[in-house]
């Protein structure tokens, strides 16, 4: 392993910002008490105050009230809570039909699958070649028995943005609840629940240089949501368990540290990366050229396999990700690349670069140069693409 490594997998997780850690420290060593009621001892009421401050700050960035935001252990829990909570609340009363897209991240896709095993039915909307759902197909899929639509803001692998405002408007008009997984887009792209009639929003801290193990769910007032985990009365009696106060403080600080300038800087690196990588022969952009997460570049290189690319880059000190089956724990090719109509070969040869606070424009040039060499050398030994 090289001393100098360049981390370009910020879509998997990010490095914690030291300033976030500094904000958290007092709540680990001095103000470590649980958040007590207002009649508790002062360490506990201080903790309560800090927790509520963090909550209000994070909710505020979504245009929401503090009472509409519940802390969770991360986006997996948030999406499970949204889908299963609505299913449990409305399954008997209204219906047992859900709608989602075919390229959602696993917390949503697998929650839907789990609900199907319990007798719910689901429509998985296909996507176009860029990964966007068709709004008419959504309209057509909604039935009187539909209780929830769950479509992500931005895709985890190919970075494609959905038209959340229109999707929310359709759901609102048809009286169907709408959940969106905003894990990868939160703070990088504006989302205001006063303008977009979304009912549930999944967010997480670890993708914006915040701590791991803390996330949240925005729950619009009066949204029917059953409590699916049993315990105490924390988080407005919606999510039991002792509050993760250092995590909440860190999350709020991480949100505060994201600036539009920084996002523009990531976007410039993304654009430079896409431009440079598309100069490699037989390369193809995955995802939409403009409706795209500012920090995500995803390119497929023909005739080479992603795990080999990844290992060669690792030896040169670069950390990237691939949608190849060989790399995944399940040995299944990326459902996202297959979902946009790509074949297995396109999934196997896909390379995802995701930028973060600690990347520099020089990293882009370095990784592009390394990738150019690696792809060329793997093509020399590949039996494909020579005729």
């Amino acid at each position, binding site marked *: 392993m090289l001393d100098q490594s360049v981390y370009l997998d910020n879509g998997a997780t990010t490095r914690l910002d030291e300033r976030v850690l500094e904000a958290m420290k007092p709540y680990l060593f001095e103000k470590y008490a649980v958040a007590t009621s207002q009649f508790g001892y002062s360490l506990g009421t201080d903790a309560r105050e800090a927790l509520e401050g963090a909550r209000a700050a994070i909710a505020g960035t979504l245009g929401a009230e503090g009472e509409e935001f519940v802390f969770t252990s991360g986006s997996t829990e948030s999406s499970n809570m949204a889908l299963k909570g609505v299913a449990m609340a409305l399954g008997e009363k209204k219906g047992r039909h859900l709608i989602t897209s075919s390229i959602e991240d696993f917390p949503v896709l697998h929650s839907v699958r789990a609900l199907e095993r319990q007798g719910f039915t689901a429509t998985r909307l296909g996507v176009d070649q860029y990964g966007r759902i068709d709004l008419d197909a959504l309209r057509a899929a909604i039935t009187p028995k539909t209780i929830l639509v769950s479509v992500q803001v931005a895709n985890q692998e190919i970075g494609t943005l959905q038209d959340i405002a229109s999707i929310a408007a359709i759901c609102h008009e048809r009286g169907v609840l709408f959940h969106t997984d905003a894990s990868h887009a939160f703070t990088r792209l504006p989302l205001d629940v006063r303008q977009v009639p979304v009912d549930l929003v999944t967010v997480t801290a670890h993708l914006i240089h915040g701590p791991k193990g803390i996330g949240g769910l925005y729950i619009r007032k009066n949204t029917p949501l059953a409590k699916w985990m049993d315990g105490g009365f924390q988080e407005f009696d919606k999510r039991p368990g002792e509050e993760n106060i250092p995590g909440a403080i860190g999350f709020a600080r991480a949100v505060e540290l994201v600036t539009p300038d920084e996002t523009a800087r990531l976007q410039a690196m993304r654009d430079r990366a896409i431009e440079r990588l598309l100069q490699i022969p037989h390369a193809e952009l995955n995802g939409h050229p403009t409706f795209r997460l500012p920090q995500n570049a995803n390119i497929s290189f023909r005739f080479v396999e992603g795990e080999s690319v990844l290992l060669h880059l690792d030896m040169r000190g670069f950390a990237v990700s691939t949608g*190849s089956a060989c790399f995944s724990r399940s*040995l*299944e*090719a990326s459902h996202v690349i297959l979902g946009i109509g790509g*074949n*297995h070969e396109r999934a*196997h040869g896909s390379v995802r670069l995701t930028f973060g606070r600690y990347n520099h424009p020089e990293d882009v040039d370095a990784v592009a140069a390394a990738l150019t060499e690696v792809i060329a050398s793997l093509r020399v030994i*590949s039996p494909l693409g020579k005729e």
Partner: protein
Amino acid sequence: MPLPYSEIVMEHFRHPHNVGRMEDADAKAIEGSPACGDMVAVYLKVDPQTLRITDIKFESYGCASNIATGSIITELAKGKPLEEAKQITWKEASDALGGLPPIKTHCSVLAVDGLRAAIQNYEERHGLVKEQVPTTTEEILRRLKHVMNPVVGLDLVRTKMVHEVEITDGTVRVVVDLPADHQFAATIREGIVEKIEPLWDVKKVIVEFTE
């Protein structure tokens, strides 16, 4: 964190031996397909007198274990008589590499299959197949185990997609459990024909789909 690959695997992955295409090969074989994510081509040069492998090369589209196994298997086979090279097992290749992760068995078996198929290709081309046993359903099924079902990246037999095999007067009919208009139907048909056609007593291969 240490990689799941041994140092020897990594060395062969970094600097694979005997890599490249051989234009004037005496025999060659391709195993796997782009759809299943791993593909190996093996090329042989054979001394017709001694029946020794004088030169061997491979090409790989695949992960590190696929590349490393291609490298080691060609090293192990080089200079050996065909009869001996045929006997090289996946276990020997894996041992020579200091072990392979179990999840990567499929990708590495492919390289061993590639070598055997190339030797078989040489024998079939040079009339060295000793006993010309008539083709049986078992033999067809054995060969279909090397045709991938790209939907899941596993072979047709393991994924129970072979609906029927029928052999009549040199015509082999294979019925696959898949709609004829499925996106991978053509790829699968090609794979089946490629594996069964070289059999000495097969004159025609018909691939049909259930729907």
